């Protein structure tokens, strides 16, 4: 696909390739990007990182990134770009699946004695915001990247609702403090 002209020029000098019989103009330059798909993906990711505030939260090179075991609340748009209505889901962060623009997270919560897991694509335009309710909701730092053991009855966790209540109460109280 991209034969090296320099090598051919060298071979011409050495006499291994016959010189061209006809006059040709200088050949055009090849495209600069060898692996275009990767360049386009990188461009897309950098665009998302500048526009999307959720980007730095899960970036591997961020020392203050969110780690599995955190308690997050995701607000996502329900009905396309025209409708401002949102729905919320909160839970323990079980897994961060890093795939560039398709990076996704898996949250697990207990809603009325039923355990529910929900996945969210972090860079999706339907995700409005991701709130960090608790940097670590498990007490101990989990020693796994994928907390699938939380599905076992031995490791079942309580609902995240009290934590959310505390979170919003502390926000309100800090607001009232600043107002006062």
């Amino acid at each position, binding site marked *: 696909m991209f*034969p090296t002209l320099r090598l051919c020029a060298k071979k011409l000098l050495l006499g291994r390739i016959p010189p061209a019989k006809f*006059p040709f103009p200088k050949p*055009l330059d090849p*495209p600069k990007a060898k692996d275009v*798909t990767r360049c386009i993906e990188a461009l897309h990711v950098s665009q998302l990182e500048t526009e999307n505030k959720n980007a730095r939260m899960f970036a591997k090179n961020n020392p203050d990134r969110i780690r599995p075991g955190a308690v997050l609340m995701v607000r996502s748009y329900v009905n396309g770009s025209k409708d401002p209505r949102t729905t919320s889901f909160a839970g323990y962060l079980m897994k961060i699946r890093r795939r560039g623009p398709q990076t996704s997270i898996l949250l697990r919560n207990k809603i009325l004695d039923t355990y529910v897991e929900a996945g969210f694509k972090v860079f999706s*335009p339907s995700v409005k915001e991701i709130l960090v309710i608790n940097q670590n909701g498990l007490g101990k730092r989990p020693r796994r990247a994928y907390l699938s053991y939380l599905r076992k009855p031995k490791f079942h966790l309580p609902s995240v609702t009290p934590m959310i209540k505390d979170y919003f109460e502390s926000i309100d109280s800090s607001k009232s403090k600043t107002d006062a």
Partner: protein
Amino acid sequence: MLPFLRPSFSPFSLSHGLFRTLTTCAASKLPLDTPEAVHKRRLLRTRPGAILFKKGMTSVWDESTHQQVPVTVLQFDRVQVVGLKTEKRDGYSAVQMGAGLRLPHNVSRALQGHFSANGVYPKRYVKEFQVKDDSCLPKVGTVLTPEYFQVGQHVDVKALTKGKGTAGVMKRWGLSGGNDSHGASKSHRSAGGTGQAKIPARVLPGKKMSGHMGHQFRTVQNMLVWAVHPEHDCILVKGAVPGPVEGVVYVSDSIIQLYKRPSA
């Protein structure tokens, strides 16, 4: 006795194609069957296409629908007009486009002369794109850049599909095969019966059987150009394109757009 129903010639009862034919012929006052009249009503593009290379696929986010959009990356590699076909000399108007690079000593003397005469370094891939008439022909040596296509326009993408070799009847034609169990003897993926009985006493032509599959030219019509990236010499089209990665792809303006009735 049933009343004799005569076809009404209102524009709403004719097919769009027939309506177009009759109006263009009426406008030009030409009879329907001369070569000039036939050429006039042919749906030919006014711009040549480009020869691009399929470089891979990614996905992007659509802000308006909040959905993930699969896109194919098509790259421009030294796409240049290498020759022209004119009505006067060849009887039709076409643009000979070239892409890629071939070293002169790897190209036949005849082709070397052709490229040299047109002032172009030899190309790896060369293809003609027919256009409507001589007025649509660009200059020889014109280089095509990604800005040739606009974001939001539709294109037809033609490429050689991936070869599948000798494919069985289930893969090639989607036949259901036989039972996996229940006593089926050595007939899990076969076609089963191939015809009727004493009549016609033969297998009819066109019977779906195993054989070579793939490695054929296929056109995907009306693909949306999602993005144009001049700095990377590429465009993104929505959807999948035939052929393998690094394969050659012929992209031209969508012919379906030519079919569309101009909105009144």
